[in-house]
């Protein structure tokens, strides 16, 4: 697959993931107790309904609205901090490098989900949502990205590489932005950012699913009037375990998961080194 095809796949995939969020209804349709069961996409186009007669399209749109922003912000945080880690490895500041190492080791030693769950609890009710979770997750993931970027920069030669390029007449800005970031750190940073993007989406689905299983606790990642993609998987589970006619929900859930994976793979492929 060529880079252009990979980039095109990435852009189309992102559009499918992100755009529906702009058209999401404010509130999900109320559950209809009189509905006998879920309807497939042919009986209730375009995506069918869940066991309570609610259109699955609404789930997709609301889920997209819930995950798009926070996952992109988390990806950006990891990318920026990773870039910083790589650039720091090209300076001669051993003291700064030591400080970053210590901070990185401290954050890297914490079990991420445990910290995220505690952060969720500490936040006031009105601040709760996926964004603080995504930011916490990104900050805890960043040390690994910084380490990897620093390792790539060290393999280049670190500060000696910069000196050599300066001797050839290149400006510092060009060396750092083009040669180090653009040519060498780009594949690492894009891969780390893409993986964080996917992790936040799957984290949201997992936490939402867990909230749905525990009926006496409130939603962790969004308001109670919204449903995310986990709701689609929750409905789909009934098909596997209880033989209910919600196979289309399971299929849609798996398609969404596959779409996220395709988006990640395509951007990593498009951003790889020449």
């Amino acid at each position, binding site marked *: 697959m060529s880079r252009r095809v990979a980039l095109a796949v990435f852009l189309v995939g992102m559009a499918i993931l992100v755009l529906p969020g702009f058209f999401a209804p404010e509130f999900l349709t109320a559950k209809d107790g009189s509905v006998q069961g879920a309807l497939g996409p042919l009986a209730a186009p375009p995506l069918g309904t869940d066991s309570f007669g609610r259109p699955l399209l609404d789930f997709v749109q609301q889920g997209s609205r819930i995950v798009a922003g926070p996952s992109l912000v988390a990806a950006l945080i990891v990318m920026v901090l990773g870039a910083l880690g790589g650039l720091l490895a090209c300076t001669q500041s*051993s003291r700064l490098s030591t400080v970053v190492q*210590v901070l990185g080791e*401290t954050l890297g*030693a914490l*079990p991420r*989900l445990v910290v995220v769950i505690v952060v969720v609890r500490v936040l006031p009710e009105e601040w709760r949502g996926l964004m603080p979770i995504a930011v916490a997750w990104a900050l805890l993931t960043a040390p690994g990205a910084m380490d990897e970027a620093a390792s790539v920069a060290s393999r280049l030669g670190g500060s000696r590489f910069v000196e050599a390029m300066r001797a050839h007449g290149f400006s510092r800005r060009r060396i750092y932005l083009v040669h180090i970031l653009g040519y060498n750190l780009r594949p690492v940073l894009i891969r780390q950012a893409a993986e964080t993007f996917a992790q936040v989406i799957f984290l949201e689905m*997992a936490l939402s699913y867990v909230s749905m299983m525990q009926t006496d606790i409130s939603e962790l990642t969004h308001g109670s009037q919204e449903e995310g993609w986990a709701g689609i998987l929750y409905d789909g589970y009934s098909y596997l375990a209880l033989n209910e006619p919600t196979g289309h929900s399971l299929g849609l*859930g798996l398609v969404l*998961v596959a779409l996220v994976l395709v988006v990640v793979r395509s951007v990593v492929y498009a951003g790889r080194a020449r």
Partner: protein
Amino acid sequence: MERWWIRPVVRLVLAVALPFLVPLLIAGMIWAMPGDPATNVCPDCTGEGMLQMVKDRNLDQGPLHFYSEWMSSMVSGDFGRSWSFQSGEEVAYLLKSGIGFTLKLFLLGGLIILAGAFLTAVKWIPSWLKSGIRLVGMLPGLVLSLAAIAVYTVYINPSAMETTWTQVAMGALILAIADAALSGTIDGVDEVIETEGRRRYVQIAILRGESTLQNILPNTLPALVGQVRARMLSLLSAAIIIEMILKINGVGELLVVGALKQDFPLVMACTFFYVVISSVMLMLQAVIEILVALSIRKSPKGVA
């Protein structure tokens, strides 16, 4: 002089300090929440009842008092009593029932990761198996767990109330394979070994009839141990979700439900458990790094 000792020493210090620091952070967070901690914990309590509750729960003298009381009783094995999850029940008792399953899940999953790393290093994993593991590993743990619990509920044990070994084994397999845990370990070990294997000293050693692994292991062991530790730390996080979906009565559920019901003694105890595991792994990594570094730097016999 290359300061090789900084990282291992930082890791050793963190390994010792984290189990004390993290509960302190949580205690600080309780007071950092908007409003008064006592009101947050028991909004319906008033008058004498509120005063007694505040005193019983050490909420009357600030976060440091709360933390020091918790630490001093924790040292003697008393993690306090649950505030809301199972009000009045000893947290140590709740934790005891969950620790066994969580440890089995984590250790079994970790064993699979370690086995994968070892078999990759000795080149015993064929490429078709690596591709298969990569393919399955693309799926998130949530999806595999749902499939597993559906199979378990329908075909194995429809009325499961108690956690069984089958659930733990399924959970461990999912933990190791999902989210690219095992495939990431295999690829990471492959990359480290291949990169190091291209170095001149290794090529010369091969010409002398020596094995590649024997020569590269001292130089690559710290990197390999670091990779495996990072992977195991991810397993610790993923285990929480897998426990809840597979209905394994472990510490993960206690943590999630305790956090959302503001049962802070339970949250602190569960967090302490996870941080201790992380600290043990950190300490192991630091010790291995120091031993390898000292071994590499030891002068050969007969050299001053």
